[in-house]
């Protein structure tokens, strides 16, 4: 029977291996200098690259992070420091609810809230991704702060440091590793998301042209290439983009897991 359990393990790891192998091999064969730095050609046309998609992803993720990280961290501080409050309990529950909202629904919200007003835009995409990010960062920040031992807080308070200052200096500093890993994982997560972008940034072949304009992004580009009828031309681009995206996402994940490893002894 243990054999069955191990068989399950192997069955689960086969797709993982296959995805990684295919992405790396097909992606590498599509890799080139021009792939990284040139504009996106129309579907079916040779040449060009996916430069704008890389740029777009970087800009949108950065903007989403600027919005999402502070809100997430301070919300997490509130939930950790004022745990007994009723508002905190309800907010915590709702945070969990938000974590489980399907990503396409976030896209719908981004569209209904922003695109309807200012059109397909970077801002709409960044807001949708920020909303995805906030509950994740809130939760991980809360957990990191809860882990800070009472003794550290008491030491600071006994020195005549007001409660709020203790939290913002000593407690946060003590929890910073946990908070940082939470943030990194959230960033990795939103970098790979397509659905929220599908309904907010529209996609584009060109370099970034303004926050209220549509733009390209890696996940969206991958999707568009995959739907192209011109397979021989566009699929290699899709794999190339996938390789870059997977590289970014997995690197962040691996760094985080390495940094938070527990030593077995």
């Amino acid at each position, binding site marked *: 029977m243990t054999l069955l359990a191990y068989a399950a393990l192997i069955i689960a790891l086969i797709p993982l291996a296959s995805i990684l192998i295919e992405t790396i091999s097909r992606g590498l064969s599509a890799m080139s200098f021009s792939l990284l730095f040139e504009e996106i050609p129309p579907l079916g046309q040779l040449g060009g690259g996916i430069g704008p998609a890389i740029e777009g992803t970087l800009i949108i993720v950065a903007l989403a992070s600027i919005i999402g990280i502070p809100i997430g961290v301070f919300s997490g501080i509130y939930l950790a420091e004022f745990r007994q409050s009723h508002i905190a309990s309800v907010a915590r529950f709702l945070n969990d609810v938000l974590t489980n909202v399907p990503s396409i629904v976030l896209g*719908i919200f981004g569209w209904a809230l922003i695109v309807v007003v200012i059109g397909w835009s970077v801002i709409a995409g960044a807001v949708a991704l920020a909303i995805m990010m906030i509950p994740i960062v809130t939760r991980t920040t809360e957990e990191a702060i809860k882990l800070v031992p009472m003794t550290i807080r008491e030491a600071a308070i006994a020195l005549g440091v007001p409660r709020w200052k203790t939290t913002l200096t000593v407690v946060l500093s003590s929890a910073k590793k946990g908070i940082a890993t939470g943030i990194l994982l959230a960033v990795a997560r939103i970098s790979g998301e397509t659905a929220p972008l599908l309904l907010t940034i529209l996609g584009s072949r060109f370099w970034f042209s303004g926050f209220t304009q549509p733009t390209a992004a890696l996940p969206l580009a991958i999707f568009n290439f995959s739907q192209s009828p011109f397979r021989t031309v566009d699929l290699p681009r899709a794999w190339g983009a996938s390789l870059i995206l997977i590289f970014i996402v997995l690197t962040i994940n691996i760094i985080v897991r390495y940094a938070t490893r527990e030593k077995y002894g």
Partner: protein
Amino acid sequence: MNTHKKHPSFLSKLNTISKKRLSGDSAFKTIVMLIACNIFLILGLMIFKIVQSSWLSIQTYGINFLWGTTWQPFPPNPNAPPSFGALPLIWGTLITSSIALFLGVPISLGISLALSEFAPKSFNYVISFFVELLAAIPSVIYGLWGILVLIPFLQNNVYPQLQTVLGFLPFFQGTIRGSSVLTGGIILAIMIIPTVSAISRDVFAAVPNSQREAIIALGATRWEKARIVMSYGRSGVIGAIMLGLGRAVGETMAVTMVIGNSFNMFTSLFEPSSTLASIVANEFTEASSPPVYISALMEVGLILFALAIVVNASARLIIWRSTRNVKEVEMF
């Protein structure tokens, strides 16, 4: 240091018991509380906006939307109004999720049992790492791999054989398509494995060792021990399964890319179809008119939203109750 008198030091302004200042503490509390209340704002706005956008469709089609089976933004007869209905989508979501659970749960349980009961600790860490890596892969890359690797594989090596063996069942009849419901279910199964196995592993780990020791003392095999652990953690596992279901229900890109995107109340798993999520992903950017078209898609999104919330809330409730029970029993 001489402190026989109240010594003047550069801290002396602090050395008298001063009046209570306008408390930095309460200002701090208020500020972070307001920031934390963003969640109320976001969820509230979300519900409001989506309902608002769906309103036209809700008014036009009423409750019949839920069991309507036509999807015609541009009816062939120009005088007929557009008609939309969500039943095939609900059906598609239901079936693909069921397939995902049917295939994915046994594998997930196998993994979590292997990790919590059978495998040595160091192995545990490495394997968990890889399983979690599965979770980190973006959905669209699953989709790409699905189109170009999984579908050819299934189409050539699995589906024909499946039809040969199980073709007497209506689910496995008809033309075999690579982009089909079954493929959608399979890819969802792979995607829920990390979720279900991670939570199950935690549930099993919470089973007190006293239980394991008791059953081993009675001469049980490892498998029998595993069964005890599973039954002990049963409700937690149910919760894990439901969370997997929640994930499957909401999953968009990978499914969209392999399910074929046709609108039908399918009977065979080899047929292409759509899910609530996939139709929105597919048609939204093209749906500029008529206005009721977008509104209908919004309503589909609303149904999906509600479904996901219900499934996930129930899941969390079950998990919470199960881990609580384990702790209580442990005290005896």
